[in-house]
């Protein structure tokens, strides 16, 4: 936030401020309007000038114990009461209790004839009387410019207005003076010339047939203030200016976790689901199951006994319920138990400010733990991209400050680059889930990724997202047609590695078996050779036996013969060697 003023140090000490009580305005002005001084509020027709002035007085009377005088130059007391009663302000009651005084100043040019010198002492007396009668601390003059139409002599009027503002300061009342926006000056009659302390400009712009109101503090003498143009809303409970910076970035971060309603998705998010009070973006192309996932999240909240508020911008509640029934999700019981509420509205029904106001109001009254906006992208048609972003930012800020977990679905168009999420709000989101269609082999499959999940370990893998009549299921590591995403490609790679490992294992086993077979064959061969060798050895042995036997027989025969022939005994003893060698040859 930019600031004006040379010395921002302790401005409150130097310049006493008067809190308006109007949501957001006190933050922009750092505490309120300059106390005891007049503030000029200018803007075109239908900007909410009168309402701002009225709310300043009502809140002053109700919240700060400062009675106020509303001097109207346009609307009668009855009209005024009626108009602000629509916003829930009970002016009549405040008037009865002498907390407020309404005074309608009526001027009709045609009834007035001017004859010579005059001044506006009558107005002074009247205002003075009104202020004193209830001890007013605040004054609203709405709008002084009616005097220019009613009184002919502008020179006198200007001099008197100058005197009036001086007088208001001397009187010590904090005043709001409203004026019509002029084409050259801030106000049609140059009132800003006289009111130099604080000037606020209201604006009502129409962008693509949808109107949005803006507020800007043009000038605030002696005080820093937000100089941006802030959208503001006129809701059922008055004005709320919603500066983006209103809440700052100091909301407490909870470490409590809540389930997504889909068990496997919880597992992907570190096993416990989302952080309580975080913001979740769910993007996807048409028909990828965003609403289904959102509905499961809502149901999970109801199961925990927490309230969930579902803003549906495309479908009616009964249509959502019917569709969810078809996937086995019954939303009627939580609705009956008051744990789930739908709020459906066409995005084009009214401008962003009204959407935001209504959403705020719903959130205030229902006090949900979970808020679902489905789809956020529909709001784009209700405002420009930057406005929508600002609005969503404010909404998220608000929800975070209330520790409400929010889930926004966002429709991405097929063919758009993934990261170009529609409203460029991804940076505001704590978690981002992406649903995508992957087409291949003649079928379309839904795939879910966790693109980011701040502050928690999360799966970087894609999961096939199956929607059946029993609900949503996430199936492991879908191997896509490859190259679409790193996650999928990596998953494919691991699968290939696994296959290769298996193949080499099988190869080893095969070789082992072969070796075993070879060994067996070899052993069989060895055994064969050995048996052959043994057979030969056996034969040899037998032969030797035969020879020995024969020798023995021969010897015995020879001995017998010799005995018979009575041969020399000595010769008979050495003889057996010779016949043996003879026989071998």
């Amino acid at each position: 936030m930019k600031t004006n003023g040379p010395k921002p140090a302790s401005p409150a000490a130097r310049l006493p401020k008067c809190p308006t009580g109007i949501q957001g305005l006190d933050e922009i002005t750092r505490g309120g309007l300059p106390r005891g001084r007049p503030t000029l509020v200018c803007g075109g027709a239908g900007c909410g000038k009168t309402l701002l002035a009225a709310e300043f007085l009502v809140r002053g009377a109700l919240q700060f114990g400062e009675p106020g005088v509303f001097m109207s130059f346009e609307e009668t007391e009855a009209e005024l009461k009626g108009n602000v009663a629509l916003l829930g302000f009970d002016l009549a009651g405040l008037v009865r209790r002498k907390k407020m005084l309404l005074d309608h100043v009526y001027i009709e040019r045609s009834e007035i004839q001017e004859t010579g010198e005059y001044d506006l002492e009558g107005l002074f007396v009247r205002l003075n009387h009104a202020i004193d009668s209830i001890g007013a601390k605040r004054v609203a003059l709405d709008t002084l410019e009616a005097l220019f139409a009613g009184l002919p002599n502008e020179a006198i009027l200007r001099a008197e207005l100058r005197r009036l503002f001086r007088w208001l300061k001397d009187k010590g009342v904090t005043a709001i003076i409203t004026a019509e926006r002029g084409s050259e000056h801030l106000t049609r009659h140059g009132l800003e010339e006289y009111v130099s302390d604080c000037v606020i400009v209201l604006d009502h712009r129409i962008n693509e047939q949808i109107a949005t109101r803006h507020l800007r503090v043009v000038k605030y003498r002696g005080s820093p203030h937000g100089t941006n143009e802030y959208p503001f809303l006129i809701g059922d409970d008055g004005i709320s200016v919603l500066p983006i910076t209103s809440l700052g970035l100091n909301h407490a971060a909870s470490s409590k976790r809540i389930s997504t309603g889909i068990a496997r998705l919880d597992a992907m998010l570190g096993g416990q689901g989302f952080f309580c009070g975080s913001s979740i973006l769910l993007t996807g192309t048409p028909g990828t199951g965003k609403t289904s996932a959102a509905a499961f999240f809502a149901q999970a909240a109801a199961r925990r006994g927490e309230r969930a508020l579902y803003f549906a911008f495309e479908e009616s509640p009964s249509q959502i319920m019917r569709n969810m029934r078809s996937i086995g999700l019954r939303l009627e019981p939580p609705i009956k138990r008051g744990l789930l509420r739908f709020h459906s509205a066409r995005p084009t029904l009214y401008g962003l400010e009204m959407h935001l106001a209504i959403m705020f109001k719903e959130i205030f009254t229902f006090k949900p733990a979970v808020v679902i906006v489905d789809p956020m992208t529909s709001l784009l048609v209700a405002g420009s991209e930057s406005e929508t972003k600002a609005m969503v930012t404010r909404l998220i800020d608000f929800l975070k400050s209330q520790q409400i977990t929010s889930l926004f679905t966002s429709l991405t168009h097929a063919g758009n680059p993934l990261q170009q999420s529609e409203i460029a709000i991804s940076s505001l989101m704590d978690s981002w889930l992406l649903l995508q269609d992957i087409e291949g082999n003649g079928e379309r499959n839904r795939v879910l990724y966790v693109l980011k999940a701040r502050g928690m370990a999360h799966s970087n893998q894609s999961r096939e997202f199956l929607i059946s009549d029993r609900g949503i299921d996430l199936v492991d590591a879908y191997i896509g047609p490859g190259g679409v995403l790193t996650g999928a490609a990596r998953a494919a790679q691991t699968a290939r590695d696994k296959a290769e490992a298996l193949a080499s294992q099988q190869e080893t086993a095969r070789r082992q078996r072969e070796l075993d077979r070879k060994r067996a064959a070899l052993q069989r061969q060895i055994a064969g050779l050995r048996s052959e060798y043994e057979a030969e050895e056996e034969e040899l042995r037998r032969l030797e036996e035969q020879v020995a036997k024969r020798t023995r027989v021969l010897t015995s025969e020879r001995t017998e013969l010799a005995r018979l022939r009575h041969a020399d005994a000595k010769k008979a003893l050495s003889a057996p060697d010779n016949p043996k060698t003879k026989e071998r040859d």
Partner: protein
Amino acid sequence: MKTRTVKPNESNSTGAPAKIWQLRLYVAGQTPRSMTAFANLKKICENHLKGHYRIDVIDLVEQPHLSKGDQILAIPTLVRKLPPPVRKIIGDLSDTERVLVGLDLRPAD
């Protein structure tokens, strides 16, 4: 109450049975301008409405609550309460012609 009422003159009876003009002059304190206005008014009435008028002078400093009834902003303001319709003339009434036009009085012949 500082209201000064100038009663219809005795000569009333001599004139036509015309309606009474009820005039109210709002001032804020005894300022020279108020005095001038009152003197001017008195003179005009005497010249044109002799005997048929009544002037109430209301000092808003004394009776501020009365400013609301006649929607008084400018001081001095002369209000013609009767005859209807209500007409207002602001200023010190120094321009006699315009006062007469404002009061819807035909200038004396």
